[in-house]
């Protein structure tokens, strides 16, 4: 039996049919007559100036319509005003000057009538350069670190700085995380079509159709309404589609130049240079505790890289400020400019980087204290946010620890490392905590109840895979009681009511609240119409519409959080448990069991929520064991810029994954009581693996990924 209003364990993804039949259309799959193909020509130097672009041969090659570069591009209105970096978000102006800031930076785009002809002609374009010395080595340039301008990233102090140095028990350790690349399966690009001189439609791969609309509008100085952005299906993003990349602007410029639609799909190797990455990070953590395991000081210092031409920052040290009960905490965060393409938030972003360090250090401290890692965390548990001195809106971590410990078989863990064996393999158990801000932003939605018994919802939200539409129809179902199969949620269209980008685990909370509010308003409207037309207030909406001779009734409204956001600290939490098997002869680490516990309020869409947690664990496993974007500093180029050499987890790497939800509504955050989970699914996971490897072997690996050479070293 199915309780209509509560459990919907079996609600399938609403876009499942389209996805399994190949009918779902991603940006490059829209058919516009006369579409031409763009191919980018990358800079072969890492820093310097373009002294010439020989495009003669390319221009004469068959089917070529144009070779667009800074030498011949049409006027870009937004380029002509402001300072050197005048485009929104300080974005690099592509094809603007002769300046080269990183290897692979596009110097030109070839446009031809077929893809093959464009690819070939692009090989004929020859750039000549005046090279300059460049810097790509993070560790060598640490001394050039600067404090970010962003005030949210300022140094933090509570109590006494470096108090850990006076503690009875101290640990001090450094952790390194290499550059990682998002690598969604879908390649990036855009399909750009100027409808007229000042009106454009694009099919984009974006996590925010409104954000893309805004960037294009201000770059080309167009009214917002003249920029139509469509992005119904996005083949993964993990953060890399949270901004408009210069390459998208390049295609739009080229489309203007040839006066035809231009489709640009970049290559997998260009995904490593042109579409962001998680920055390299170096962190120092100092923890101090008294003999009973009470933390007395936390010091967390972090450095991450950015580009020379744009600043990128993220919240690496935030967790250390509020996660555990310590009277003394100090943190700093600095960025190191390098000659690389600019980074962008990658799933879990800075918080995942920081959690690797803090949660590894917590494990190291528990070991020094000879305490169980869970008991140590519970000892330093806090019901109040020590950073902002206010209560958490909800936090059920003690319960979550218990649930996960039971599922993984924590009782089989031996606190003494290297003592648990399974044949020739060493067995270890590890755990860690993850936390991410649970926010509710501002969003609008439109709801149309129709006399055929259906409900159509629209909002300019985006979906990169978590199941936004599936969550929204379930929220609407709960409010209105209409069967899920009769509700449609449309997104990915910039002409719909405004919604924020899909990032920071906020879509369900923000857009879901708008959907909930719209549905409640529709309900009230129908009830009012019912009584006015002599029906009972609880009459079915179909009957009310018929009685009033109306084909439909419509509500559009904006929704946002209120005072509760100032009264409470709102966070989503996760706990990751892993069992690893380590081969002491080969150094191979196999993750043999995973249990992830989510404490993120009420679960609105159980099936897709579970998948999201599973996906985060898979991403976390890659971060822990295999992923590393390797730079050859002689040339400033990434050497493993493909799926054969950059190892993302494959089927054979992934064991059974159990997902457990505390599933208790948060009383304050939003009408659904639901908090986001996209980031917590990954945050902390890599530390759980490192901690399990330590438990198995007695070896503490502080530099990711945990490859066999590090185990054997």
């Amino acid at each position, binding site marked *: 039996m199915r309780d209509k209003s509560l459990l919907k364990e079996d609600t399938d993804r609403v876009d499942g049919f389209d996805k*399994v039949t190949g009918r779902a259309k991603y940006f490059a799959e829209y058919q516009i007559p006369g579409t031409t193909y763009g191919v980018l020509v990358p800079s072969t130097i890492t820093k310097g100036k373009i002294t010439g672009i020989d495009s003669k041969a390319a221009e004469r090659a068959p089917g070529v319509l144009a070779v667009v570069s800074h030498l011949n591009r049409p006027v870009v209105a937004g380029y002509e005003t402001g300072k050197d970096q005048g485009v929104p978000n300080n974005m690099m102006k592509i094809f603007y000057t002769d300046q080269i800031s990183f290897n692979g930076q596009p110097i030109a785009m070839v446009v031809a009538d077929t893809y093959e002809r464009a690819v070939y002609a692009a090989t004929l374009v020859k750039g000549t350069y005046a090279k300059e010395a460049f810097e790509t080595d993070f560790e060598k340039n640490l001394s050039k670190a600067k404090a970010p301008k962003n005030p949210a990233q300022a140094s933090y102090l509570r109590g006494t700085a470096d108090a850990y140095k006076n503690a009875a028990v101290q640990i001090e350790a450094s952790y390194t995380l290499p550059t990682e690349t998002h690598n969604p399966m879908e390649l990036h690009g855009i399909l750009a079509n100027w409808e007229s001189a000042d009106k454009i439609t694009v099919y984009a791969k974006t996590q925010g159709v409104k954000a893309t609309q805004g960037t294009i509008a201000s770059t080309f100085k167009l009214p917002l309404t003249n920029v139509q952005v469509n992005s119904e299906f996005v083949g993964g993003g993990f953060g890399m589609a949270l901004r408009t990349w210069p390459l998208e602007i390049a295609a739009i410029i080229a489309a203007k130049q040839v006066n035809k639609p231009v489709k640009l799909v970049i290559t997998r190797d260009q995904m490593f240079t042109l579409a962001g990455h998680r920055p390299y990070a170096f962190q120092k953590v100092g923890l101090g505790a008294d003999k009973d395991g009470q933390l007395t000081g936390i010091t967390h210092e972090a450095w991450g890289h950015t580009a020379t031409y744009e600043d990128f920052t993220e919240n690496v040290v935030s967790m250390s400020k509020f996660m555990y009960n310590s009277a003394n905490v100090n943190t700093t965060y600095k960025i190191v400019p390098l000659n690389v393409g600019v980074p962008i938030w990658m799933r879990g972003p800075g918080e995942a980087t920081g959690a690797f360090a803090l949660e590894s250090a917590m494990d190291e401290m528990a070991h020094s204290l000879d305490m169980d890692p869970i008991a140590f965390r519970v000892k330093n548990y806090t019901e109040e946010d020590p950073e902002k001195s206010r209560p958490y809106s909800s936090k059920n971590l003690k319960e979550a620890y218990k649930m996960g410990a039971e599922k993984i078989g924590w009782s089989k863990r031996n606190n003494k490392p290297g003592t648990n064996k399974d044949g020739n393999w060493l067995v270890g158990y590890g755990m860690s905590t993850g936390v991410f801000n649970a926010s509710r932003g501002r969003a609008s939605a439109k709801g149309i109840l129709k006399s055929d018994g259906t409900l159509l919802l629209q909002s300019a939200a985006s979906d990169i895979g978590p199941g936004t539409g599936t969550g929204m129809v379930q929220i609407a179902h709960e409010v209105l009681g209409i069967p899920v199969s009769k509700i449609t949620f449309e997104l990915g269209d910039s002409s719909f009511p405004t919604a924020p980008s899909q990032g920071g685990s906020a879509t369900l909370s923000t857009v879901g609240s708008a959907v909930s509010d719209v549905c409640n308003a529709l309900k009230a409207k129908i009830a009012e119409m019912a009584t006015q037309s002599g029906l009972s207030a609880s009459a079915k909406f179909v009957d009310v519409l018929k009685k009033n001779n109306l084909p439909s009734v419509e509500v559009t409204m904006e929704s946002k959080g209120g005072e509760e956001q100032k009264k409470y600290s709102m966070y989503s939490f996760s706990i990751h448990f892993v069992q690893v098997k380590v081969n002491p002869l080969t150094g191979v680490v196999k993750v043999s069991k995973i249990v992830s516990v989510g404490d993120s309020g009420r679960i609105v869409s159980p099936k897709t929520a579970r998948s999201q947690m599973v996906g985060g664990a898979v*991403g976390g496993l890659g971060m822990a064991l295999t992923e590393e974007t390797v730079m050859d500093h002689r040339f400033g180029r990434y050497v493993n810029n493909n799926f054969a050499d950059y190892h993302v987890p494959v089927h054979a790497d992934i064991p059974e994954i159990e997902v457990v939800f505390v599933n208790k509504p948060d009383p304050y955050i939003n009408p659904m009581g639901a908090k986001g989970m996209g980031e917590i699914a990954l945050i902390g996971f890599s530390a759980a693996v490192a901690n399990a490897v330590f438990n198995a072997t007695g070896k503490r690996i502080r530099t990711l990924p945990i490859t066999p050479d590090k185990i054997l070293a």
Partner: protein
Amino acid sequence: MSVKEENIPENEGRRDFLKQGTLFTALALTPVSLLKAADQKADEKFAELFEKVSLRIKVNGKAHELFVEPRVTLLDLLREQLALTGTKKGCDHGQCGACTVHIDGTRVNSCLQLAVMNEGKEITTIEGLANEDVLHPMQAAFIKHDGFQCGYCTPGQIMSAVACVREGHAGSKGEIREYMSGNICRCGAYPNIVDAIEEVHKSGVQV
């Protein structure tokens, strides 16, 4: 054609040479009517004779008679020329499996195939798997087990999964994982995909 590389003037592409050189030889063989349009378009047409080859291929049961450049991959032919965009491009290098199709019943990365290698062959893509609106059992199982998130790797996973079962490589979770490892899912839907395949295999339905 015996055009030698060294005969091509410096800085001139092969096509430039064709534009000039082939005209002389082709002229003798070409009907006058065609020659009337002695503009760039005619030039293009002559060149096409040398640059494209004929290809007869069946895709999802439908016969196509095509004229394609030999350098066109099967993947690009499907996506860019036949508008069959269900087959995805994830790497173009045979490293991700997003482009998996069946060629005469065998799973193949279509990005590693030149289209012209498939003369007379039968290709099945994700669009050809379902029977109108009745899903193939593997497609239905993917929905039931939520074997995807963004859906971009999904057509490739499903085509590979069907072949995996047909090949007899779906005997256990471990075997499925091994024989599906050529299909990357960055969203990490792996456990759900394995569950879907295992269920289809165990059900014994003809795939």
